């Protein structure tokens, strides 16, 4: 088989549509527009280190981190329940867990808008209890709730797939040696499930830190995240240079969090993407 010819459409395609666009972002990121054309400059990055933009970066990382922690706390027990081998209808339950993921991401976020709004279900339920309506939508908590709701399966499924592979005789051995069920969980199950936990954390943190939709719909534009900043620069402000610089910052952020994951994977299994 002549590899050269058969994969050349792909190589050409990816050069035009993947490599070249990334180079464009790099170019715009390290230049500024002057009257005489583009000038090499790090001004865009300097601008990013102004307090208002650092606040946005900090907020993105903080909200994504809180959502990841909540997903882990809620998701780990759920993964354990699903992985229980004695469970009847296990496959159906796992399928039931996956189905909401197949629904359009925007619709899942929109669903929470209708629940949280001032005239929505939760508030009309509260008014039955004679509690005055409270502002639930367009708050920071609403944004976190949206992230947890959308990304919870990304935490549960990797942990679940590691848990079902754990050799049951290991648990029995621990019990035979006198460990109670809490010790088995702490000393055997949890350490063995770490790879699943790590990939769950990355799979929740990465989309949460780059989203601009959840913060726009559930935060109402008051909680600008780094994604919203990029969207604004390109679509409303038209400052491509600054927008590209922020995108480069975002890529670096993603590379760092992936570096964490692959470092861990290498220590454990010696196989990673990098």
């Amino acid at each position, binding site marked *: *088989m*002549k*590899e050269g010819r*058969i*994969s050349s*459409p*792909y*190589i050409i*395609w*990816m050069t*035009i*549509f*993947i490599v*070249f*666009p*990334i180079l*464009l*972002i790099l170019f*715009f990121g390290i230049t500024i527009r002057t009257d005489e054309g583009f000038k090499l400059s790090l001004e865009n990055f300097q601008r990013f280190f102004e307090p208002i933009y650092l606040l946005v970066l900090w907020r993105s990382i903080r909200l994504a981190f809180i959502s990841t922690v909540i997903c882990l706390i*809620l998701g780990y027990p759920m993964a354990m*329940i699903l992985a*229980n081998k004695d469970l009847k209808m296990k496959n159906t*339950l796992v399928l*039931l867990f996956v*189905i*909401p993921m*197949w*629904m*359009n*991401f*925007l*619709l899942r*976020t*929109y*669903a929470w*808008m*209708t*629940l949280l*709004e001032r*005239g929505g*279900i939760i508030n*009309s339920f509260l008014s039955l209890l004679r509690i005055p309506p409270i502002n639930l939508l367009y708050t920071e908590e609403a944004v976190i709730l949206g992230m947890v*709701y959308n990304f*919870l399966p990304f935490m549960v499924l990797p942990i679940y797939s590691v848990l079902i592979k754990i050799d049951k005789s290991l648990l029995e051995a621990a019990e035979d040696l006198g460990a109670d069920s809490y010790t088995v969980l702490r000393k055997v199950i949890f350490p063995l499930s770490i790879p699943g936990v790590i990939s769950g954390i990355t799979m929740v943190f*990465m*989309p949460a830190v*780059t989203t*601009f939709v959840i913060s*726009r*719909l559930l935060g109402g534009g008051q909680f600008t995240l780094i*994604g919203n900043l*990029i969207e604004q620069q390109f*679509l409303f402000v038209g400052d*491509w240079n600054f*927008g*590209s610089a922020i*995108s480069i910052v*975002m*890529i670096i952020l*993603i590379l760092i969090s992936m570096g964490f994951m692959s470092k861990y994977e290498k220590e454990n299994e010696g196989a990673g993407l990098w």
Partner: protein
Amino acid sequence: MVMSYLKKLYAFIIFFFLYAPIMVLIVFSFNESKSRGSWDGFTLKWYIELFQDRQIMSALYNTIVIAILSSTIATAIGTAAAIGIHNMKQFKRSMVMNLTYLPVLNPDIVTGISLMLLFIFLKIRLGFLTLLLAHITFNIPYVIISVLPKLKQLNKHIYEAALDLGASPSYALRKVIIPEIMPGIITGFLLAFTLSLDDFVISFFTTGSGVSNLSITIYSMARRGINPKINALSTIMFVTVLLLLIIVNKRMSKTNIIKE
């Protein structure tokens, strides 16, 4: 005993958390009143309005046409690329694979704006064509990732055997290699098709005024506030996905039984 009840309760709460919003959305798509707080009686008027909405119907048409075209083209390019990559030398292969993982790992928003910059740079008007090109671009890697494992499982010698028996390379490719890796190709195609149907972020940046897909339409409607037509639309989409999953599951279990 107590533990098992606690587990059931916990699983129930999580499932409630996952499904309650979707169920509310579905129930209120049949609600007479436009407000979400009260139930004013059963109606199908939002569904009728949905099908009369020109904008939504054209978005639906775009979504389906783009999903079919982009996944077909991506499958063709991606399968050929996978066969080529499989036969590359170590160094070149890891170079090309790193390139392939780039759009998978890059945040969607970065892929989206980088493609937007490219189209503006090349002076291609943003619209249907750019949307299609963008979808093909982000679909190809998923096809390659689905096809490559099948190629690795393939016995090297059957291709050589076909050549020894007098088949030309292209004939051997069509009659031996392609049928062997077919399951991977189909998985890749389905994955590409679903990703294209569902994509919002990349489409949002690579389309121009006038052309939109369902996700973009939903976003612009939701940004303006609550709209019962979206409820009707989500009900239809949810039921469609559910039916598709049930059919696929049934087919899979049937073939499993036959194999056994």
